[in-house]
């Protein structure tokens, strides 16, 4: 892979640029649409940004689009709470369950491991009806806990931490025992700090996963004040015969992209490290 041919360099760059353009173009049009008045977009679509940027975003954040009943600001907060709740919840639960499976010898240990593992094959959509029934019975409809808890269990993360813990030498655990620490100390003082990079990588993935949840929040929220942003955007489109507020919808879409992008930008170093190296 170290050939130095000018046309090859040109070709690879051209392909990369083309790829970037294909991905960037819809985002660009979204941005452009969010900066014009409704009339300007619906008549003939402009290709340069207009002058209504601040006005549109301000309206989206504080008032929202006519019939949804919640501002984008509220919905962003809901999405953020849900995404963070899912990310932190999943990480803590899977750290603990991986810890139990790797370091404790209890009856049916492998049985539990395989039970967790098998749930990998069941996505949210498959178990959505029974889960809804349970959440409804627990009176958790229209609540943050209802949004977060059913999505917290994660076989993938448990499996990932299990694999990582198995590479941690047993001597570290024994060294802690000799130093006078129990399992809890070993977990918090040694294992969690050592898993730092994996936790960061998982956080990025899980935050985006949580942020992009659509079906589950759609199913269990009827109260507008618990709408997440993705549902909000969908609701903004349901105007029947009327005219959708496209400029507001586009502004909301741009806003919906910001938090995941920020998470990726600020955590990319840890993310890459978590994916490629282990600290030992």
């Amino acid at each position, binding site marked *: 892979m170290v050939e130095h041919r000018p046309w090859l360099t040109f070709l690879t760059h051209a392909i990369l640029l083309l790829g970037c353009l294909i991905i960037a173009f819809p985002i660009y049009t979204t941005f452009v649409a969010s900066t014009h008045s409704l009339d300007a977009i619906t008549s003939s679509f402009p290709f340069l940004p207009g002058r209504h940027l601040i006005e549109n975003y301000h309206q989206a954040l504080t008032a929202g689009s006519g019939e949804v009943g919640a501002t984008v600001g509220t919905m962003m907060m809901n999405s953020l709470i849900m995404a963070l709740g899912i990310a932190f919840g999943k990480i803590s639960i899977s750290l603990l369950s991986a810890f139990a499976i790797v370091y404790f010898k209890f009856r049916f240990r492998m049985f539990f491991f395989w039970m967790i593992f098998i749930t990998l094959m069941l996505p949210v959509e498959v178990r959505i009806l029974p889960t809804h029934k349970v959440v409804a019975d627990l009176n958790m409809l229209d609540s943050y806990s209802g949004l977060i808890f059913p999505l917290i269990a994660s076989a993938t993360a448990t499996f990932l931490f299990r694999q990582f813990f198995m590479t941690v030498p047993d*001597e570290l655990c*024994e060294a802690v025992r000799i130093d006078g620490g129990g399992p809890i100390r070993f977990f918090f003082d040694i294992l969690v700090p050592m898993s730092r990079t994996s936790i960061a990588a998982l956080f990025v993935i899980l935050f985006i996963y949580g942020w992009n949840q659509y079906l589950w929040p759609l199913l269990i929220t009827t109260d507008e004040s618990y709408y997440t942003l993705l549902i909000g955007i969908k609701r903004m489109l349901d105007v029947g015969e009327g005219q959708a507020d496209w400029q507001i919808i586009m502004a909301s879409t741009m806003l919906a992209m910001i938090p995941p992008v920020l998470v990726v930008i600020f955590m990319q170093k840890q993310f890459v490290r978590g994916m490629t190296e282990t600290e030992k």
Partner: protein
Amino acid sequence: MADVSLRDIYKSFGKNEVIHGISCDIQDGEFIVILGPSGCGKSTVLRMIAGLEVITNGEIAINGNVVNQLEPADRDIAMVFQNYALYPHMTVFKNMAYGLKIRRMAKAEIEKRVQRAAEILELTEFLDRKPRQLSGGQRQRVAMGRCIVREPKVFLFDEPLSNLDAKLRVQMRLELRNLHEALGITSVYVTHDQVEAMTLGDRLIVMDDGYAAQIGSPLEVYERPATRFVAGFIGSPAMNFLDARLRSDGKSIEIPGGINLPVDSGGLPDYGGKQVTLGIRPEHFELTEQKEDAMHLRVNHVELLGADTLVHGHFGDEKTLLTARLPDIYHFKKGATLSLTVSPEKLHLFDMESESRIQN
């Protein structure tokens, strides 16, 4: 400061018994080396003393208190692991201080102890570094420092030098010995390296397949090995073994080729006429001019070590392989015949069946 006593300890993993009853009284301040080949159970014994393995049967007592049921932390021991087991995300200082922190020692006291240990081990300038920024020898010292700051009753070492290169190993060996002399803490050291064992230990426990084959000072073990296994394991190159027969009066040994070697002191009348195994260390052969009653070795291969010459050759009609280590340099040709003698007190006799030493 403490003595440790092992009283008839056994260890089984499931139905598989791996330690078959070991007893040993370790004196206060003594440096005991447990020596044996891989898989003989030496690390298991150490881990039982540490409390990392449950004792299946028997008792371990530290300072007279039976510690069978105590957690490692409550036994007041410290252990150096083969791979050091340093906490990778903590600095050297924190690594050493961790055990003290858990014990809720005052900050100032922790600081004082870590600084002192760092001085002893010449680690002062590395206190802020992470383990991965250190060389093997330095990591080794941090692992030692973690033990020293605790001021435990007993030090346990599990093959601590085996991951170091040869030169560093020699240096660390001396440092370990000096450290032991300075601190005087009872130490149990596991190794498969006989040079480490001979140079470090006040006494050795030579282990063979879960049994303590011999417990004694390094010289005792070398000069009077209790079993054929110990004789073959200690010493490099390994001891030569020959099938031999005691004459009926027990005063001389007949070896293949009709050669008679006299037995030291009064002879062994009890064993008169019996088949025995004769052991001779390579370094105890001497060249001789005399042809009568000398062993004739047909040279096969010569290794010049500088200070010594190793001669590998065949002996007798059955072409038994023998190795001799001769001081100084000799250029023997392949196929030449050497005449060798051994002084009677350097002969080792072992019972054919029990493989234990025949005392004379």
